[in-house]
């Protein structure tokens, strides 16, 4: 009940913020424009719509996760709105969990709208539905949930600017972590290799959540793999939330 109250309030804050609509409008415009771009290519229409659509959904989803996530807790402390909340019979972990669920809910709605548009446009261009698109967007959503948890963790102890930089760095490295392993194998120095491997092990492997290329090439989606990846993502989120709670638990709201 208390977690739901905080979550609902966080969701309400997001949907009453113009920034969300600006990002969403821009994303929908870009996804819509993919149809025009597709018209310029010969024989690749469906591929361009799907490719550009999934990429836009992922990119703008990440924007929302980062830009709203970095302010989740910081803004509450900075604007002192937290005083009236924490003084009520609510555990601090419930507050953190509520903020997180609220933003994930916001993301679910916005990413859902974007993914649905991509799905419908691809259907229109292709003449047949491609449910794989929704599966790809769904798995990518788990990656967005990780990014949100990273932003939330940073938000519990640092300023939005620093949080944005750190979350963005985590996102970029996380997306490239597959390449990171390949790169590590090329490095002659064992010390540097160990550091790169360490980074790979600590940061989330966000590349695993990208299965768009399988959808584009009509390859089977391997549900067992998707399930394992989702489980990996959820465990990672749990760890991040535990960390965020342990930082937040000790904070003084001066």
């Amino acid at each position, binding site marked *: 009940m208390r977690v739901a109250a905080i979550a609902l309030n966080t969701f309400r804050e997001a949907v009453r913020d113009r920034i969300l609509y600006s990002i969403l409008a821009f994303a929908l415009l870009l996804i819509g424009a993919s149809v025009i771009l597709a018209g310029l290519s010969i024989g690749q229409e469906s591929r361009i719509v799907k490719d550009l659509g999934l990429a836009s959904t992922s990119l703008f989803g990440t924007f929302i996760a980062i830009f709203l996530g970095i302010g989740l807790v910081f803004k509450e402390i900075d*604007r002192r*709105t937290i005083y009236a909340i924490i003084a009520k019979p609510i555990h601090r972990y419930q507050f953190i969990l509520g903020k997180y669920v609220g933003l994930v809910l916001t993301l679910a709605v916005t990413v859902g709208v974007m993914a649905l548009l991509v799905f419908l446009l691809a259907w229109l261009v292709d003449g047949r539905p491609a449910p794989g698109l929704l599966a790809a967007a769904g798995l990518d959503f788990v990656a967005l949930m990780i990014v949100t948890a990273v932003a939330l963790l940073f938000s519990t102890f640092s300023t939005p600017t620093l949080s944005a930089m750190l979350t963005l760095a985590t996102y970029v490295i996380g997306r490239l972590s597959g390449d990171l392993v390949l790169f590590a194998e090329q490095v002659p120095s064992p010390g540097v290799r160990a550091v790169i491997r360490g980074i790979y092990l600590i940061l989330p492997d966000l590349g695993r959540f990208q299965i768009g290329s399988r959808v584009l090439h009509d390859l089977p989606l391997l549900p067992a793999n998707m399930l394992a990846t989702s489980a990996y993502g959820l465990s990672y989120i749990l760890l991040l939330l535990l960390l965020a709670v342990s930082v937040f638990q000790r904070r003084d709201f001066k």
Partner: protein
Amino acid sequence: MEPVIEIDELCKDFRVGFWRRRTRVLQSLTLTVQRGEVFGYLGPNGAGKTTTLKLLTGLILPTAGTARLLGRDLTYVGAREHIGFLPEQPYFYDYLTGREFLDLCGRLFGLRAPARRERTTRLLHEVELEAAADRQLRKYSKGMLQRLGLAQALINDPSLVILDEPMSGLDPLGRRTMRDAILRLKAEGKTVFFSTHILPDVEAVCDRVAILVGGRIRDVGRLEDILKTRTEAIDLALQDVNPDLAASLEALAGSPVSRQTDRVLVRLLDEDALDRAIRASLAAGARVVSVTPQHQTLEEHFLREVREADR
């Protein structure tokens, strides 16, 4: 008597500056507030009033010591079920309407929808915000926010209400409303613990006060007891005073006497001088009309405590 707030040797350190040096802002605070009391927590800016209130409401964590609220340890979140808190200069979610904000607060207390609706409607009426109930808080004035702050502090029908500087920044009308609200809470049998530096309000509503200076309690007790402990002067009113007596009284008082129609008023600084003045007056055939001790005001007492602490 049943204690509602029991603070025992509570200390709080903050780390300040670049080197994160430890500074003690609350020093071994011990204080008890009884059920049904209106308790004023006084102190100049920076004395540690807000720090104490934040400790009591779980916003900051104590460095040492303990406190019990309504018989439950401070660290127990459930202890806040029956506590209402109005933070200093209330900052609330400006994208919510007054009604939505109260509903959110009700949810945080675990109130069910019908109870929330009923309490919200009643409190909005009580703090005279019915007309603005569905307006976003960003459009509220400071006085309106303060009133909404009071309403959210009462959403759970608390038995202990903690208010941080409830009168600061309000116009005379707003202060009056807040004062009346405190008296109403007292009449309902609730305990009110509030910090302030606006002294006339304290004299109007408090049963007991504590004076906090530099993180330490300097004085605590009933207002009249605190103020009685120091008598500033004694006014002696006499009739039938001849000029010789007037001259010797002026010598005793160290200041001129004042004449009011048939009376003479002498202000004496201590009881010894009073004794001698009365004896001399009776010997000279004058009549003693009244002897009135002049107590210090709360403001004088407060300033003296602050000055003594500074020394």
